[in-house]
């Protein structure tokens, strides 16, 4: 069952065969029930049936969850989008989360024009504070155009610590051109 759901024990049902409904609020009622959805292995699965109050007519539906290897997580939708352009050596802040929050990277793009040059090459990384999380590009003294993206990362990468800054780091300065990086995700 989802870690987010386990954090709300009042929603859990003792009897897998039991079903129940909870109207938690007028604005966002939630229906909870259990069913055998695990290939007939009698493993109870908990569903939260959400309501999107912005929909017209109001709809209920299936919440998307993804397995992180051990627990299910609610599949996020991104709410924060950040961009930066840099040519400097070292770390450049890309995303400073709100105080007390962690950033969650759900995707990124890196774009380097073919006019970019370096003295002896540069490795471009995304860093969780000072720890490398993604190596997004490696260029020599010159480069062909680079336009990479992360592809689908689902819930992506959650920072290891609150208040950590997501940095873009160039191991050496660019002598011409620049690196454009976009990231998106959530703060939580």
């Amino acid at each position, binding site marked *: 069952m989802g870690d987010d759901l386990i954090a709300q024990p009042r929603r859990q049902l003792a009897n897998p065969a039991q079903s129940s409904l909870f109207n938690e609020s007028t604005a966002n009622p939630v229906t909870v029930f259990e069913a055998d959805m695990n290939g007939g292995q009698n493993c109870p699965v908990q569903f939260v049936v959400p309501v999107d109050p912005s929909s017209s007519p109001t709809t209920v539906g299936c*919440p998307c969850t993804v397995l992180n290897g051990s627990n299910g997580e609610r599949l996020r939708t991104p709410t924060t989008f950040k961009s930066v352009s840099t040519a400097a050596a070292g770390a450049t802040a890309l995303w400073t989360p709100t105080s007390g929050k962690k950033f969650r990277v759900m995707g990124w793009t890196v774009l380097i024009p073919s006019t970019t040059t370096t003295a002896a090459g540069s490795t471009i990384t995304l860093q969780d504070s000072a720890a490398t999380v993604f190596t997004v590009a490696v260029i020599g003294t010159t480069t062909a155009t680079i336009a990479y993206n992360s592809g689908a990362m689902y819930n992506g990468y959650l920072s290891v610590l609150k208040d950590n800054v997501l940095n873009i780091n160039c191991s050496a300065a660019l002598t011409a051109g620049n690196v454009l990086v976009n990231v998106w995700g959530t703060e939580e």
Partner: protein
Amino acid sequence: MTLPVIIDQPDLSTVAVSGTVDAVTVVDKVSQSNAFVFNNATSTWEEQRTPTTLVFTSIATSGYNTIWTPAAGKKFCLMGAEWHLRVTSTCATSSEFILDDNGTTVMEMCSMGTTTTGNSGSVTFPGNGYKSVAVNNPLRVRLTAALTAGGICVTVWGTEE
């Protein structure tokens, strides 16, 4: 337990379920309903959108170029974009190409010097993508300098709501 429930069917009709609702009933109905993704900023679930607006344009002019003006009272919700900078493009010094939400940078697409060997890129945002910060905001492409030849072709897609 009695709880009125309105279920949005795939064929856009609605079914009202009231009275005692058992798991089988709910499973049956839910299996026909939409997927939801979680908005951590508002702690609410949202229906997963599918794009209904597709906009294509080619741009070479400096400054802000409006490519998507939502209907009055609506916000654009950008779910993806692709771009192609023509290899024949030139500019006086250098230029950057930026997707802009009426003054707020959404993302940097690419950049070039006086010439380019071309640049193509695309992005498909997860979930419901980028929602405009205000109703009636246009989605624009900003060029920091005009192109003297060529241009950048941009296609974006999403919803208005």
